[in-house]
């Protein structure tokens, strides 16, 4: 079993064995299934898509149907070692409140989101004068679920303003680009932003 998505491959390295994990927007349970097998974690995925929920159940991944925009009030304070949310923060009504909630429920959280300051986005917008459409942002502006796009710098400003502690930062690129420039200048060359954060 291997993880196809580059952001998930990076995240799994940060997960301590035997952790209690909550995966917000867990999709088909790929990450949780991997962590259960390789890190002996226990946890639950929250998902709202019917087919993905069925796929989780078929795999034996614990999945709970829940709309993330309704919050996490059904989970107790500090009841998880880790709360993960991959590629969903930008689709929520209030990403800042969700981050607060994730750090209430979990001791740490990991988030990944598309970096809107990626050079291809910048180029697309500046040359075409249209909202960027790409493999990681495949929607047009009027039907996109990604209503709160941000950048590495935006996210770090938010963390600073809320006193969130950034434990790790990584760049996930769909083409598996490991160019040295992505490490030095992630806000320009990083396609997907990956952060591990605590209070």
């Amino acid at each position: 079993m291997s993880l196809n998505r580059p952001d998930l491959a990076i995240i799994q390295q940060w997960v301590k064995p035997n952790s209690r994990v909550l995966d917000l927007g867990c999709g088909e349970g790929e990450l949780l299934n991997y962590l259960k097998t390789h890190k002996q974690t226990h946890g639950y995925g929250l998902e709202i898509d019917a087919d993905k929920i069925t796929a989780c159940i078929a795999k034996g991944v614990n999945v709970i149907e829940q709309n993330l925009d309704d919050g996490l009030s059904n989970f107790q304070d500090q009841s998880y070692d880790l709360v993960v949310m991959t590629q969903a923060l930008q689709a929520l009504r209030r990403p800042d409140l969700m981050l607060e909630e994730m750090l209430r429920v979990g001791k740490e959280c990991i988030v990944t989101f598309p970096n809107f300051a990626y050079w291809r986005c910048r180029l697309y917008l500046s040359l075409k004068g249209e909202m960027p459409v790409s493999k990681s942002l495949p929607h047009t502006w009027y039907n996109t679920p990604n209503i709160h796009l941000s950048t590495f710098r935006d996210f770090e400003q938010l963390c600073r303003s809320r006193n969130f502690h950034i434990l790790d930062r990584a760049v996930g690129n769909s083409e598996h680009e490991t160019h040295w420039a992505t490490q030095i200048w992630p806000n320009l060359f990083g396609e997907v932003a990956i952060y591990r954060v605590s209070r």
Partner: protein
Amino acid sequence: MPNAIPEDSVGIVEPQSARFDSPLELACGRTLDSYELIYETYGTLNAQRSNAVLICHALSGTHHAAGYHSVDDRKPGWWDAYIGPGKPIDTSRFYVVCLNNLGGCNGSTGPTSIDPKTGKIFGPDFPVMTVPDWVNSQARLADYLGIDVWAAVVGGSLGGMQALQWSISFPERMLHTVVIAAAPKLTAQNIAFNEVARQAIMSDPCFHNGRYADHNTLPRQGLALARMVGHITYLSEDSMGDKFGRDLRSDKINFGFDVEFQVESYLRYQGEMFSEAFDANTYLLMTKALDYFDPAAACNGNLAEVLKQAKSDYLLVSFSTDWRFAPARSEEIVNALTQAGRNVSYACIESPHGHDAFLIPNPRYQAVFSAYMNRIANGIEAGAL
């Protein structure tokens, strides 16, 4: 009658009966010295006896969950849409057991049975049953059938409450619990509806304090009225609206109190049918079992604490328009299970059919249910269990 038995049916089935002579102590403090349970089985028990699934029935359910008793039957068992070859509870893989609960009126010992102490029928003297009492009696049936561990205990509504109770009462005797359209306990509103139903029965002049059989009569009106009230809570506003709207039986209103709207006609028909087929004392007893169900009471209302003693994995399913046991009620159980650290998955199925949705074919419900049950069956067949 079906012109031919459908291929995905368990076919013609025959109820069986098991007699128990060791006394069963009940929550009310009384004891049943001996009793009979009527049950049906579908599929084949494997050599390891590891593929058995128990189905628990709801308020007015019976042991006849699937298939037909004869080719002349108009309708199959009550959960035929979900039990059969290739269906979510796949009888080509599982050995399925469904019984009529104690206190029922379909063949298991209940108010219409003869009390061996008096030689007369129990009537209102039959002890009030609780969900844990039923689960204890079901465990005896499991012993009788040689089933040490159920692969799964499954139920909808009051049946889901029994499945949940099983996982608390006998954590070592089951691996999976499927709780559909249920609640961890009744609300005041739920109890209020049950009380209206009971009052309807008990205020019928033919009720005779439950001794209607001695008077060669039946509280038909009261039981029909109870069923009418209950039936409204099983449907959603939308499903009633779609089915009947404000349609009239004739093309004009009559300024009278006879049946005018189609929905009135439907409810009266449902009530009349039910009052001929069901026993009033059983109905009273079943509604009380619902009212009393509250497993969290053992831990000062903390369901998560109670569920820490469970060992099973869980699937919870609710339906969007169910207002009898709304999705939020299932979510209370889900939250307690995650707090207790149990494996649990939960789906809220979009359906217009209200509480009754758990009985009705629905592609997503079938997909979720099948995915869960197939994984259990795969595990059994791989010898993993």
